[in-house]
């Protein structure tokens, strides 16, 4: 079919080539060249300045024996999986609720989108204070021991960061789900009503499958974002206590810039890039297949 259409169509206008070409050159100069340099440095012993030598695959091999890197990957995967799932579940519920026949619909929606506008640095600072002061005060007042300490100083620090990530992240995902819900033809529901499908059955059999495109976007974007998590952690725990909340991006930053391991952390960053791409491609494949099957 492709061939047939391409024969029929007129040639592509030169303006398109020129325009996209210029942007591509600019993008190549300021994004791809630095990236390629970064990739190149991952095969060297460069410290960020001065002389350097090629060291072959040493940095990559080292990664597999380095416990810090291993732990950072474990933490990052754990964080990304939990947060991606929770953010999608909560957003889906919120979207359904916001799509119901509620009063003050637009105002309520506007409030739920508010956290998205605020920026993770300052939100991180605010929640830092909440975890350090407000919640412990509350916990002591109520006599609940688990709540009377700063969660960011315990084994459960990850949950503090997850909570803030949800607070920031749900807004955008919810809106995308709402968009998906609104694009569903009401006829479909009417038909379902006739068939006697209601409540959860209607959701799981009809609504959710029709939300497939929104679901794809949300899963891919959240997984990608949470695999590269950085801002929230720097604003809240800086990777602590110990190294228990050190994500890969935080490790790259801390050790690459503060710890004189620039080349090694470049290798780590290249690895992170590969991992994120693989996961995203995998998600897209699976989810798009699902979309097609349903569509």
């Amino acid at each position, binding site marked *: 079919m492709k061939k047939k259409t391409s024969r029929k169509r007129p040639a*592509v206008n030169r303006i398109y080539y020129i325009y996209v070409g210029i942007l591509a050159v600019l*993008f190549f100069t*300021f994004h791809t060249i630095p*990236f390629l*340099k970064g990739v190149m440095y991952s095969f060297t012993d460069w410290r960020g300045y001065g002389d350097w030598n090629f060291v072959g695959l040493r940095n990559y091999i080292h990664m597999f024996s380095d416990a810090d890197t291993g732990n950072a990957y474990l933490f990052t995967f754990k964080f990304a999986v939990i947060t991606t799932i929770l953010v999608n579940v909560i957003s889906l519920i919120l979207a359904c609720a916001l799509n119901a*026949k509620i009063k003050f619909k637009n105002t309520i929606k506007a409030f739920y989108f508010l956290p998205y506008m605020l920026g993770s640095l300052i939100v991180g600072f605010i929640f830092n204070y909440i975890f350090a002061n*407000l919640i412990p005060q509350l916990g002591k007042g109520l006599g609940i021991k688990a709540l009377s300490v700063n969660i960011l100083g315990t084994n459960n620090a990850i949950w503090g960061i997850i909570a803030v990530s949800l607070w920031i992240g749900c807004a955008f995902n919810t809106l995308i789900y709402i968009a998906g819900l609104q694009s569903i033809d009401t006829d479909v529901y009417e038909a379902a009503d006739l068939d006697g499908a209601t409540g959860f059955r209607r959701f799981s059999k009809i609504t959710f499958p029709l939300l497939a495109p929104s679901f794809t976007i949300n899963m891919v974007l959240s997984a990608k974002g949470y695999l590269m998590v*950085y801002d929230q952690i720097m604003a809240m725990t800086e990777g602590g206590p110990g190294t228990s909340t050190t994500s890969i991006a935080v490790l790259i930053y801390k050790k690459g810039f503060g710890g004189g391991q620039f080349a090694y952390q470049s290798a780590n*960053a290249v690895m992170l890039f590969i991992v994120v791409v693989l996961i995203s491609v995998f998600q897209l494949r699976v989810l798009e297949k699902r979309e097609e099957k349903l569509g």
Partner: protein
Amino acid sequence: MKHNTVKVKEHYNWPVTILLIIGIVVVILLPLYMALMIAIKDPSDMNNILALPKKIRLQNFVDAWVMTDFPRKFFNTAFITVINLIFTLITNSFAAYAITRNRKKSKFFSLMYYYFISAMFIPFQVIMLPLVVQANTFHLDNIFGITFLYIIFGLPMNTFLYTGAVKAIPEALDEAAMIDGANPIQIFSRIIFPVLKPTTATVAILSFMWTWNDFTMPLVLLSDESQQTLQLAQYVFKKQFSVDYNLAFASYLLVLLPVLIVYIFCQKWIMNGVVAGAVK
């Protein structure tokens, strides 16, 4: 059509409404309320964080304003954000359109599509140091340069967002215009761009939020203090005036305020934009 649904007296789902309102108060507003309370209190009045202040102290805002050199930082941030927004919307949308429409006709555009999309997955940390060197070579270590870089760096994400929307526009529309003798730029600006409005809203919000809230790129690129952005100033501020939470929170609120104002005025447009535009 929309008006009809409003006019018809509906049965509101009150339990859901109430639950949602409780959610707003507890989850969304409480942290912000706390931030506000701290910002308007005197340091001696901090025993009960959530209580209303005994005396409202606006001096915190004045001090924060002076200490962070708010006007200059605001100007820098606003400059970067606004210029980036305008150019991103104009340049990136057309790029995405050019790529998406010609993907099937030419290998070049298909290649470009994958090129830009795959760049979305490059962690900023890996390009950070080489970028600094590159930016220095081209004298981009100032607010003009950083704005330019934002516009370029937005391409992958924006191409990704626009693609779906462009695909959804029937090509017959372009073809009809082409037969009428319109050139690609005319077709795009007169026919396609207006239809893309919802996605443009999404892109606008994302770009706005990104540049307003980013602090990593300003940190490494803007070495001159007079060029610093608001977020970066907060980062510095936190370390310098650490003990005085009242001052710190006043300063945070000063940074949030412009965003809130924009949001209040454009809230409906933003919401409708994202809702209608994100998925096609």
